């Protein structure tokens, strides 16, 4: 809290604009306005910049910070365990995956509050290298015919999805400490351009009809990477960058709660999760 470097803060700003897109974000946007995602995302970036200016003002209210922290914490735990259970560990019961993640979050809460920012610095470097590996191996597989305009043009849907994009990328900023002094718009801009490149790759490689049926299209395009005909199926290694980003969000939101409330909250999440998974199974299958 006392001495957070400029680099560290910018790295967290960069990394926080993305974790909420895991699972539900990309799927929704492609399904709503398939071919016109460019317009929608650029509008979303502008909206996001405006929302960031507003959240500079809103960051004074501590109650709002705590409420949003709790909501984001629960949401990210849920999406991350679902993603890992589908993609990495099929047969492991979900509560074991959740328990491992809970323990790591508790361990990180026991450290100083500025440790997360230092870790974000290192994760930034790792994510950028993985990003470059991914883009340069996938550029050759883009099929230009996939960019043709297939879906209908509808202004309402475009505005809808740009608002959705802006909200998903700027909500985590409300939980940051000292947002007003250290906010730098360039970090947000770079992060959104990264997401834009990701969308371009998804639509260019898979095509709109195929990309709109997959739950995790950002994982499916990694399956197509083939470097020198030897390194294939490296999707599991490259997906770790998403796990790191989600962890940064979990760490920062847990910093806003005191240790006792965090323990109680995580304990209730764990118990409710195990109960609800067994009882209300059908409800959850529909969403995930």
């Amino acid at each position, binding site marked *: 809290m006392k001495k957070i470097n400029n680099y560290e803060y910018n790295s967290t700003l960069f990394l926080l604009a993305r974790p909420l897109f895991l699972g539900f974000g990309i799927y929704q946007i492609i399904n709503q306005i398939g071919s016109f995602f460019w317009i929608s995302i650029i509008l979303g970036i502008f909206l996001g910049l405006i929302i960031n200016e507003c959240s500079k003002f809103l960051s004074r209210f501590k109650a709002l910070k705590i409420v949003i922290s709790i909501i984001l914490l629960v949401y990210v735990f849920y999406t991350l365990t679902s993603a890992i259970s*589908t*993609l*990495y*560990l*099929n*047969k*492991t*019961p979900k509560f*074991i995956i959740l*328990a*491992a993640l809970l*323990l790591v979050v*508790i*361990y990180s809460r*026991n450290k100083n509050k500025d440790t997360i920012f230092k870790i974000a610095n290192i994760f930034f470097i790792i994510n950028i290298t993985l990003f470059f590996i991914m883009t340069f191996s996938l550029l050759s597989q883009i099929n230009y015919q*996939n960019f*043709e305009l*297939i879906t209908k043009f509808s202004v309402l849907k475009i505005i809808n999805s740009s608002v959705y994009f802006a909200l998903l990328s700027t909500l985590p900023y409300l939980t940051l400490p000292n947002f007003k002094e250290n906010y730098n718009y360039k970090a947000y801009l770079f992060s959104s351009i990264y997401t834009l490149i990701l969308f371009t790759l998804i639509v260019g490689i*898979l*095509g709109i*009809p*195929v990309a709109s*049926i997959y739950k995790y299209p950002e994982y*499916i395009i990694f*399956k*197509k990477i*083939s470097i020198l005909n030897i390194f294939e*199926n490296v999707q599991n290694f490259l997906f770790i960058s998403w796990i790191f980003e989600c962890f940064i969000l979990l760490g920062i939101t847990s910093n806003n709660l005191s240790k006792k409330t965090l323990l109680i909250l995580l304990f209730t999440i764990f118990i409710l999760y195990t109960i609800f998974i067994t009882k209300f199974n059908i409800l959850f299958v529909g969403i995930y």
Partner: protein
Amino acid sequence: MKKIIILTIILLLTGCYNYKEVSDLAFISSFSIDYTNNNEFNIILEIKENNKDNLFSSYLLEGYGKTIEAAIQNASLSFNKNLYFINLDILLISSNAANLKLNNILDYVTRDNNFALDFNIAICDDSKGAIENILKKEEIFGRYINTLFKNTDNNVINIKLNDLLNSYLNHYYDIILPIINLKDNTIIIDEAVIFKNNEIIEHLNEKEISIYNILSNNLMDYYIHLELDNNIVFKTTHYNTKTNFKNNTLYIIPTLTGSYIEFENLNLNNSKELKRITEKINAKFNNEVEAFIDNLIKIESDPLGLKRYIKQKSLHKIKYRISTNIVLENKSLIFKSIGGK
């Protein structure tokens, strides 16, 4: 702090659910699905075996059941290893299954995370015979067919799962798949099928497959044979097709870049002669393309996706015009033709 350590140690000792021993995995190379008249799925799996001398051999498993999953369970009943689909090379579907159960098959293959994404798909009515034919030569069927499809000297239709799904889910396209036939004890892939509303309606022969490849910009080699007084062969190395829709007509403009590779008794210094030959080749190619597109209009099927230009629901009664460009480049080692003056 100590509590966290104790909890993590207990957590780590809870057992590994996803642990797979490498020696317990059976790598599946080809997967063939047939739908018999008894409303049952009949599947054949080809499993790669690893011997100590680095020789490759494989063996087959058969099974049947009401659903694909039941058939796979039936096939692996007496088998002692876990089936592992992630290095799948080819998926064979019989025509009956393609007509009736294509939705089911594609759903099964796309839903599971442990399926590969880059395997070829083909139609084969006698998969067991075809696979056993290759097994006699001591090669693995999946790998053999994979390299066969990658060879650009043959004009084949190389469709992987992603392309098939793209055409299948897109309402502007009709899907097209290659056929693997067994003729005189050898495997030949020289035909293709076109679908309309997910039913097979027409077979294409070799010539039409090559024209399809040119019109959809798949990079395969192509040659035209012209028979005048002499035999002349023109081979393309590079082609590009552009399509426009203006004034209610569809303009298709293929550009073929290539060179003459086989002459017989011809004088190359006569430029008028060369011009005449080029125009004849142009005309011949135009005729072939027109015949192909007329055929497509007649059967009302559209594997090329021309509907996305005309914005109609069918190809019925459209006007089209084809204008070919042939670009000659000289890549030969000799100036004169042997036998010419």
